[in-house]
């Protein structure tokens, strides 16, 4: 797979607005962002309300995902372009989620909402009307999703990549610094995990660095062994979806999983090993 199969730039999107068979999807955590303005024709998916089970901590099940996409007017044959705020964290998460349920043709808008805004491109408040479809999802592809036991088993065996900031990795902060720091989890990281912050893969405007720079970052500077399988995690699994996208989609690493439970699960588990401070 090449970069152009998984990533489109803002000029491309601008030139293809309104194309049949193309659906723009904005995915944010703060969905008021979409309501204030979005790319013309884009539909909204709410990271929490639409993609998370309202009771259990897990995703909506397959029928739930089918109902969501059918209602939003997305069909199996559509090319879905996802974009969002927070440097595409939640858009990368949605991309991974669409792949998890087997949607074939999905791409990420490079730089997401931020690049679009910094370019002063047009945003509208008009909500598009799309006819409902009958979407069919596949069973979840567990090859790209890690659960807690996979992570414990990976300690000392596979590549574990902690993509949070160095301050969260060492235990100095428990959450990104725009969030209050009063959390239930123990601070620290999974032993043997390497800290490669997601932000090292992106420029300030949110676009991804070149394949060459990314390969150098993970293989040379961070010492990831590309011959081994990899599990990426962060705090709740969206920043690590960003890194999953880099490793699996841009750099074509075959076995990369995103651990969506991430630190809010691992840091609350009883009896698992935790390391604090710098990498040992």
């Amino acid at each position, binding site marked *: 797979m090449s970069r152009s199969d998984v990533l489109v730039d803002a000029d491309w999107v601008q030139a293809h607005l309104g194309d049949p068979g193309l659906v723009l999807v904005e995915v944010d955590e703060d969905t008021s962002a979409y309501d204030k303005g979005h790319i013309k024709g884009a539909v909204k998916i709410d990271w929490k309300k639409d993609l998370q089970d309202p009771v259990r901590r897990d995703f909506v099940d397959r029928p739930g995902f089918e109902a969501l996409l059918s209602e939003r007017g997305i069909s199996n044959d559509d090319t879905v372009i996802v974009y969002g705020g927070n440097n595409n964290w939640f858009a990368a998460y949605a991309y991974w989620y669409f792949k998890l349920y087997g949607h074939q043709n999905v791409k990420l808008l490079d730089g997401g909402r931020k690049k679009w805004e910094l370019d002063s491109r047009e945003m509208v408040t008009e909500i598009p009307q799309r006819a409902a479809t009958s979407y069919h999802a596949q069973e979840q592809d567990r090859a790209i999703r890690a659960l807690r036991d996979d992570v414990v088993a990976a300690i000392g065996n596979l590549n574990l990549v902690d993509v949070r*900031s160095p301050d969260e990795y060492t235990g100095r902060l428990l*959450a990104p610094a725009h*969030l209050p720091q009063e959390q239930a989890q123990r601070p620290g990281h999974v032993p043997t995990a390497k800290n490669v912050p997601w932000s090292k893969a992106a420029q300030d405007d949110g676009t991804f660095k070149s394949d060459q720079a990314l390969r150098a970052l993970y293989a040379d500077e961070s010492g990831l062994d590309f011959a081994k399988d990899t599990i990426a995690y962060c705090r709740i699994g969206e920043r690590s979806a960003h890194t999953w996208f880099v490793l699996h989609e841009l750099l074509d690493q075959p076995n990369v999983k995103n651990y969506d439970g991430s630190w809010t699960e691992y840091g609350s588990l009883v009896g698992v090993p935790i390391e604090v401070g710098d990498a040992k």
Partner: protein
Amino acid sequence: MSDAEQAGASGCGAPAGGIKVTAGVGNQAVVQGHVTRAGTPVPTGYARLLNSDGEFVAEVPLGEDGGFTFYAAPGSWTLRVLAPGGVRAEQVVSAESGKIIELEMAV
């Protein structure tokens, strides 16, 4: 539970302007402020917090009033602002536990 705690428990993203300090600062080390151009708030843009090594720590889209709020730890941080038109501004700030540091960034 405060709004801030709820947001922190459920998500990881930043709402525009960040999460305002509502129920007292407690022992948090808060850095907040506003971005203005010729005295007028800049509502479209981003505030980014970097640690003392220059590494990304967090980012929020600016609020309608050009505002931003971060919950840091005691120590030195850099606040970087990005806005349309290639606008960029930086300021070094020292955060302290139990205090709100107020910044005014003119771009």
